[in-house]
């Protein structure tokens, strides 16, 4: 589903973010990318959704080398990815419903289809009763559930999550992880960057450890350390 082949990433200022990174993620896997802050986790995710290009090496998603895509092809790639961020990135002047619907509107779906799908996905994340609330009327956990709903509404086969629990308390973080587990069990491939030890240790999934831009370990059924 996702493959990195000898990927090197230097930023413009000469900072080395990733050094000779290679790994493969199969369909339906749940993979944690772990490591302290500034070790390259976010860069790795950005390479998957083509926010950044590698300096060297190949990134293959769904069998396609995405380093060679044209801009309209990048848009097509992103329609197959759901992306969730630590800071939720919701539009403050739109309701929960509108935030989720926005992801479908900009792809040109009909109103009827939008209504059906948004309703369904809000039901899955348990926010149907808060459809008309604005983000500032929601708790952190509810905001993150909204952003997950937005990521899922177009049925992407891959979900990318960059520290999705970073801004949440322990209880809410678990709630979010329960969702992600459920989504994963329905076949969605999940790549999640985190430095939350408890979660990684308890979930017992594949763990890729990054340190100074290098993969230092890649364990199935792994733990944080």
């Amino acid at each position: 589903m996702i493959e990195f082949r000898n990927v090197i990433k230097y930023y413009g200022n000469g900072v080395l973010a990733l050094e000779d990174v290679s790994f493969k993620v199969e369909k339906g896997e749940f993979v944690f990318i772990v490591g302290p802050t500034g070790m390259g986790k976010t860069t790795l995710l950005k390479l998957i959704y083509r926010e950044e290009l590698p300096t060297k090496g190949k990134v293959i998603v769904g069998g396609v080398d995405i380093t060679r895509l044209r801009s309209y092809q990048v848009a097509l790639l992103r329609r197959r990815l759901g992306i969730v961020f630590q800071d939720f990135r919701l539009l403050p002047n739109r309701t929960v419903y509108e935030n989720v619907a926005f992801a479908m509107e900009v792809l040109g779906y009909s109103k009827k289809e939008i209504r059906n799908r948004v309703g369904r996905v809000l039901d899955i994340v348990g926010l149907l009763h808060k459809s008309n609330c604005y983000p500032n009327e929601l708790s952190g956990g509810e905001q993150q559930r909204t952003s997950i709903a937005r990521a899922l509404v177009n049925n992407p086969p891959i979900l990318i999550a960059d520290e999705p629990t970073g801004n949440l308390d322990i209880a809410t973080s678990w709630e979010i992880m329960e969702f992600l587990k459920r989504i994963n069990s329905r076949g969605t491939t999940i790549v999640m960057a985190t430095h939350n030890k408890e979660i990684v240790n308890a979930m017992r999934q594949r763990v890729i450890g990054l340190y100074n831009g290098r993969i230092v370990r890649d364990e199935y059924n792994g733990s944080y350390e």
Partner: protein
Amino acid sequence: MRVLSIGYILREAWRGLTRARISSFAAIGIIAFMLVLLGIVGYIFNLVNCTFAGVSNQLEIIVYLNDNLKAEERKSLKDNITSIEGVKEVVYIPKNEAWKRFKETFKGNKLVLEIIGENPLPDSFEIKLIDRNYINYVSEALRDMPGIKDIDVPLDIANRLNSLIKWVEIGGTLVILVFIGVSLFIISNVIRLSFVSRIRELEIMQLVGATGIFIRGPFILEGVLCGFFGGIIGAMVFNALVYLFNRYILSSFPLFSTATNFNPFTSSLGLVLFGMMVGGIGSAIFLERHLKR
């Protein structure tokens, strides 16, 4: 899909305009203000230009006739002159009439009239031209006509007016061009600034894989709408100012009261279209800066 996307673009543009009301109003207000200024500059340019043109088109060529010209000779001469290209009107001034005018002009100056004594003036034609550019052509054509004693061509004044008008045109055009540039710069920046709060929107659009028209459409249309509303308000204010100016100020300066070719409809249309164009350009600049490739 096509109908859907048009609906979506209209909806989103309208939503953008009405949700961030303060920045939209500010943008529309500044656009209106710039367009009023632009209109005023254009109007003044037009007024000055038309005034000069009006004055110079009043220039006349005077033809003095031989003393012993018979009535039918005079008539055929008049017909010949009238048929010259560029001649608008030929008026016969008999010597008595000319003398009467002369005496009228020097009414206060008895000495002049005493020295001159009897009427020394010949019969003449006053030739009005279609416009000042024919002055050389017509005076050349008159030169060889029989029955003419002398020709008085205000060539010197015509030439001076011509070069003055040329400079006014060049200067005015430059001022207007600079002003168009300045308003383009200011308006497009105002639009851009009113969009800054929406960079996140743009980001999310790109992250969920929206393409071309779905991202650009609403923003461009919103900029165009801002320009449209700014243009409507600007044109209304501008026309009101022109009305007041004509009514209370221009009427006390007869020099300027020559008909200008100012047309409220076309100039309003021009302002609105210019506002829309610049609004669209502002949006395009914003998108160019913030859309990642």
